[in-house]
């Protein structure tokens, strides 16, 4: 679906802030590349342990220039710092944790999410590569293994294509795994009955959000402005 309307909503940073509000204290969380990585800026001081899938728990904030240790990076290859209680392990053990069901939540970016909660996020066909080749990275394991999957993304593509769709047309990351979608325009829960529109960005109506969403939205009776 090509979207003609343009709405102004949250910045990438504020999408990350809204996601941070969804994370519970006392949990282990993995943040994917892109907007999800920004969530770490909003949870400093909270009782949330971040995993970096190359083999670290309790990943600290990004390193300042004089703190950079080249052997200490996050999964986006950014230099990070330790926190009290940080620990290290092999990548294999990291994915045993992920598939083993120990991650309370994963925050992932997406190219498309379907009304059934299918996630497509690792391969954009516009790049012109064969559809079984691309950067799968840790996304498939996280989507399958995390107890809760939160997608953080812009609501439509830069060139105006809807990303919340009836059926994903891009190669899937995993089937029926997404629990919550947080975008610049809305917060949408994936429920057995369909997509439940819970929150909309300031100044927008449910109709506005539906007009840039291919999948049918069920409007929550408790619809509110996005809670930041």
């Amino acid at each position: 679906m090509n979207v003609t309307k343009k709405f102004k909503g949250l910045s990438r940073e504020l999408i990350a802030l809204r996601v941070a509000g969804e994370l519970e204290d006392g949990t282990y969380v993995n943040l994917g590349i892109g907007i999800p990585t920004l969530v770490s800026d909003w949870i400093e001081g909270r009782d949330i342990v971040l995993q970096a899938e190359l083999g670290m728990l309790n990943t600290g904030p990004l390193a300042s220039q004089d703190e950079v240790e080249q052997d200490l990076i996050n999964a986006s290859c950014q230099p990070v710092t330790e926190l009290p209680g940080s620990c290290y392990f092999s990548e294999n053990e990291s994915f045993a944790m992920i598939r083993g069901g120990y991650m309370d939540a994963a925050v992932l970016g997406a190219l498309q999410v379907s009304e059934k909660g299918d996630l497509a996020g690792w391969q954009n066909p516009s790049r012109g590569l064969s559809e079984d080749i691309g950067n799968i990275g840790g996304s498939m394991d996280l989507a399958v293994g995390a107890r809760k999957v939160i997608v953080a993304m812009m609501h439509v593509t830069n060139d105006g294509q809807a990303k919340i769709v009836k059926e994903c047309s891009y190669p899937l990351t995993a089937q029926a795994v997404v629990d919550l979608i947080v975008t610049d325009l809305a917060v949408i829960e994936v429920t057995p009955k369909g997509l439940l529109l819970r929150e909309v960005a300031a100044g927008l109506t449910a109709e506005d959000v539906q007009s840039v969403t291919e999948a049918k939205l069920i409007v929550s009776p408790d619809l509110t402005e996005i809670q930041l």
Partner: protein
Amino acid sequence: MDKVYPGVDEAVADVPDGASIAISGFFTAGTPVPLIQALVKQGAKDLTIICMQMGPGNEDINQLVVNKQVKKAICNYPFYRSATRGADSPAEQAVRAGELEMEVYPMGTFTEKLRAAGAGLAAFYTPTGVGTVVERGKEKRKFGDNEYLLELALKPDYAFVYAYQGDRMGNLTCHLTARNYNPEMAAAGKITIAAVENVVEPGKLDGDTIHVPGIYVQRVVKVDRPSYFPTID
């Protein structure tokens, strides 16, 4: 037992044409760059490279592609995130031109294929990839309520690994997040070559903090600690 080789050139000298080589490293961290450079110099061809990425954070590996030494790459995050940057990358260009075969696996499956090989297992069932292109051509089996894919072990002829410290017997200690693929790749390789920053005499390392037991390592070579700023941008 002394597994120390005089230098990286001697350590990779016997890699034959057609060999499969697992190369460790998560982007910039824990990548045995001096061994890759030695392999470029050595010139073995028709190689199968088993490595997270073919460029991002690991530009040196592209020299193997430019040299036309690589027949096939088995990866989990092969390309630059940016399509523009990818278009300039030798590995992505070679894939597009049909000059480089490529297989891509989910990261957890990739590392488990190596772990299984090192542990003497033929295959394993994983829930990852069910319902995606990854399941093509693979046995799918239901256990309880869930479906799993049969993935085969992957045993490379050589493994190139990296460690912060190691002794002459091949016991290795990695550093922080530079551990990543190193332990499983070391165990998987029929011949494992470890590039080690600090090579010490047996007894100098705390045996209780070894990440790679020496039994998995056949060759140890001292390398200088590289200095770089970690980035894939």
